[in-house]
């Protein structure tokens, strides 16, 4: 038996977002490109994190992350404190970025520049923490595929490879984000977007910065906490 064909009027077809002559996603091309970039970058980090998971499972055992990332303060070891500080710094920078986008939507030039600068400052603090962490671990003898044969490393070679790849890749994203945001802040200060009548560039930069924060949530959870 032939299924009954459903008849659709031309008007109904034309109403669809995909009928042509319309913007199916309802955003500008610049924002759409940023979303597509974010999606591709999400796969990069997704791949890295999955491989880290696979290496960790196939290693059978893992380093004592709490001890590896402990901060020696006031005469005692505080486990994971440095990572907690880094997390709060990055969330704060994301908050400043949200306020920058808010000011940009109100075409408030001075505040946009102020909040963008604060975002960059907190991003820079994050990078300093990371530089400290790298220096400390390298001094303790950690390298990609080389680990000291004593606690808390136990000579687990895969740990160094995962650590330097994941945090290095994320740190590179933070660094490029800072440069990107500084360039945007400079253009806001010069009044480029006032003349253009649109502050959308700030929103697009914001998408990127929040994405960097979003990736850190995953790295923080699966690499440091687990």
């Amino acid at each position: 038996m032939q299924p009954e064909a459903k008849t659709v009027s031309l008007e109904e077809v034309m109403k669809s977002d995909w009928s042509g002559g319309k913007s199916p996603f309802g955003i500008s091309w610049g924002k759409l490109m940023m979303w597509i970039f974010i999606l591709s970058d999400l796969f990069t980090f997704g791949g890295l994190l999955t491989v880290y998971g696979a290496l960790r499972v196939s290693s059978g055992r893992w380093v004592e992350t709490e001890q590896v990332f402990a901060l020696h303060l006031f005469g005692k070891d505080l486990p994971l404190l440095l990572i907690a500080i880094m997390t709060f710094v990055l969330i704060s920078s994301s908050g400043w970025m949200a306020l920058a986008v808010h000011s940009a939507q109100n075409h408030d030039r001075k505040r946009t520049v102020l909040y963008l600068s604060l975002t960059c400052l907190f991003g820079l603090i994050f990078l300093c923490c990371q530089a400290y962490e790298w220096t400390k671990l390298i001094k303790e003898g950690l390298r990609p595929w080389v680990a000291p044969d004593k606690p808390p490393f136990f000579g687990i070679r895969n740990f160094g490879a995962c650590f330097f790849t994941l945090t290095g890749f994320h740190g590179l994203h933070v660094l490029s984000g800072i440069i990107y945001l500084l360039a945007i802040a400079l253009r806001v200060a010069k009044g480029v977007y006032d003349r253009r009548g649109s502050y959308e560039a700030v929103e697009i930069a914001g998408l990127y910065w929040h994405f960097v924060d979003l990736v850190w949530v995953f790295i923080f959870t699966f690499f440091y906490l687990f």
Partner: protein
Amino acid sequence: MSQLEQKHSNAKIYLTVWFWLFVLSFIAYFIDMMHLSFGLSAVLFTLIALMKVGLIAAYFMHLRFEKLNLVYAVLSPLILLVALVAALLPEAASILGTLTMR
């Protein structure tokens, strides 16, 4: 500025989300301090991470206010990541099995 933009440009939402991101991070840190069993803490950590990512994507990245077409276009390819995990982790477990047998 379009009307749509004006409606959603609300600093209060951003501050509320910011506050909850801090709270969730604190909770995750405390759970880590409590030294629960690996399975339980893994589930809790994953839940908290998903909540934080949801908040960031929905409010900071405005995904909640975009057209559903965009939301689906961004979220649906992520099923491939689930497939990647599902493919690699059993593989890793079997590698571990052959290594310990030797």
